[in-house]
């Protein structure tokens, strides 16, 4: 592929229509060649140019389209029309079309392809699922042409994953791929999975970590906390049983009268002793 990196006018191929006298000749448009965006060109501006030659009727206006959709604010009445892309990124790539409209003739257009390596924009860094559940890993990309996707498990051995095993299903759409693993197996499925997007210009890959939780995993903390609680309750109950007998005091009414000698809470054993002494003294 001839890498014609822009900014300046590349070699425009002039294609003169033969037979100027032909009334029904189609209008010809001179356009820039396809452009490939690379890491070097990311800071420079990309200029797409269209030049209308040999039109019989006056054209009404011209505008640009990208991937089948109108680009706003590009309508002009000039014969030469230029579309600039500043700081082109991967999602600026696509099929660009300059379109000329006529009053009495059908629209004329030319396609300029701007290609780039795919850039993976969306993926999950990690996925945690319980065993037996289904896991879905996905990758999204931007870039033109649309890439082909491959999935790999990065454990050194198995290269490509495909739909053959019956448990793993891969669905690919233009810029999106999905890897579904049904009925997760805790022994074989955990690991690092890589999605790879490849197109004519280059490729890009991203990884996702898949973790499978065992059914019994929460059981150990549960039992641990349960054990801690039982130990605490036992400690509290034992402490209380040992304290209890000392707290119970008999002889309540006389004790109330005697409390004036004990303005503060005292130890129970002292009370027993002093009660006898005081009784003798007061009566």
């Amino acid at each position, binding site marked *: 592929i001839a890498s014609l990196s822009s900014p300046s006018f590349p070699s425009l191929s002039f294609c003169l229509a033969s037979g100027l006298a032909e009334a029904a000749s189609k209008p010809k448009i001179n356009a820039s060649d396809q452009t490939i965006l690379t890491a070097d060109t990311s800071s420079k501006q990309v200029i797409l140019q269209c030049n209308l030659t040999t039109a019989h009727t006056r054209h009404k206006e011209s505008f640009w389209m990208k991937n089948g959709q109108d680009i706003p604010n590009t309508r002009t009445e000039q014969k030469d029309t230029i579309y600039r892309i500043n700081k082109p990124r991967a999602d600026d790539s696509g099929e660009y079309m300059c379109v000329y409209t006529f009053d009495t003739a059908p629209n004329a257009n030319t396609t300029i392809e701007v290609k780039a390596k795919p850039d993976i924009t969306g993926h999950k860094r990690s996925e945690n699922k319980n065993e037996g559940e289904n896991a879905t890993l996905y990758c999204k990309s931007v870039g033109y042409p649309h890439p082909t996707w491959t999935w790999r498990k990065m454990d050194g051995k198995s290269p490509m994953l495909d739909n053959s095993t019956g448990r793993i299903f891969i669905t690919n759409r233009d810029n999106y791929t999905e890897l579904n693993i049904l009925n997760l197996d805790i022994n074989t499925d955990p690991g690092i999975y890589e999605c790879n997007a490849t197109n004519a210009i280059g490729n890009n890959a991203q990884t996702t970590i898949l973790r499978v939780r065992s059914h019994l995993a*929460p059981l150990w903390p*549960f039992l641990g*906390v*349960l054990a801690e*609680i039982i130990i605490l*309750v036992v400690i*509290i109950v034992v402490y209380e049983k040992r304290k209890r007998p000392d707290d*119970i005091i008999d002889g309540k009414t006389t004790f*109330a009268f005697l409390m004036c*000698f004990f303005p503060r809470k005292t130890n129970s054993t002292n009370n027993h002793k002093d009660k006898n002494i005081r009784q003798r003294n007061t009566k």
Partner: protein
Amino acid sequence: MPPAAATNLGYTPPDGGWGWAVVFGAFISIGFSYAFPKSLTIYFKEIQEYFSVSYSEIAWVSSVMLASMYAGGPVSSILVNRYGSRPVVIVGGVLVCTGMALASFGTNIIHLYLCVGVIGGFGLAFNLQPSLTIIGTYFQVKRPMANGLAMTGSPVILSTLAPLNQFLFDSFGWRGSFLILGSIVLNCCVAGALMRPVNKSIPRKTIDESSKCESEAQEHAAAEDTTTHSDNLQTEDQSESKGHSFVQKFIDLSLFRHRGFLIYLIGNVVLFFGFFAPVVFMAPYAKHQGIDEYSAAFLLSIFALADMFIRPTTGLVGNTKWIRPRIQYFFSFAVSYNGVCHLMCPLASGYTGLVVYAVFFGLAFGMLSALLFEVLMDLVGAPRFSTAVGLVTIIECGPVLLGPPMAGALVDYFGDYKYIYYACGVFMLVSGIFFFVMHYYNYKKLDEERGKSKAMETRNSDEAVQLKMNQADRTMNETDE
């Protein structure tokens, strides 16, 4: 001095000693009761996707749990009156654990409503009421402090549970997390084990520690009256229930004739309409102002931090000799302050304004929460507190559940959050002013009644002392002869 009605417990509470261990147990119990439903919201998104239900259906889990917690109030009151706090809290902890463990095996959303919502909610109700009740039995002089400390459990445990739940969710998924949360909630059983029933057989001195023995002849006679009274009823834990145990087996409806209780109830119903909605809508309001998600979440952390520090402080302040006698005014001030805070919120502009609001609101919310049950205890007294709080919670159920959805409807209708704050501010200001006015009237009445009853008491104790002296003389004469 606290009003006369509240001190007629039949014994003098320890005001310390094992009481602080009980406060710690109550801290844990109350903390789980309030924080647990709020912390479960972290799992909702995943559960919603798992069961393929709408957001409102999953939010029902929280509502059912809250509703059960409030509706279970009277049931828990009856059980506490009958069996004491300790068994009820332990049963409550086991109930929540069972509910969560069953929910972890749930196959549809109805299963979750039943297990987490109903069973879990009832378990939490069995934690909340008894914890509050037992503080009243252990503390009298230092009760505001004890209440303030115990209510601090809510923000502390919420701050602990929120990141813990996130961690559990990442490591184990929602099913595993529910199982582990079930075991963590069993700590309420440990808290219950700490709630030893207070020993009422020790008739200690009354509150005055500095008076001399001779001048206390009257007080001793009075104390003896009360202690003999308590002796007769000493066989059970809840001695006061012996007298009217049949009525208290069901709901003690005589509370509805209690002036203080009615004031509290009416004021609270109005108050609770505007109580929780500002908390719920703080983060969405911040995001509506254009603040990013993390800063909005940080606002809630600031709120929780302010809340955490003001609760014990409020308890301390409420305990001082200037505030304690007129603690109802302090409560009315807290309610009005809340109202003013909300009314000023729409004036806050930008992130700094919202941070300032979060701090002030945290202080207001904490102050109110710390005093919420203390003032009820102050009004009805510890013996009837259990029934009172049961009645209050079941009646508050309505405003608590209706408040946030009504606020949400306001937002949808007007498209602006400031109307919520105006509405909530108005509700709280109105109830604050209501409290001020009614409590002024109530205090006047109580002072009059106390004046009358003191006159009667001195008359009675004079007679009793006279009687005893006559008896002593007679016995001495008999022994002499």
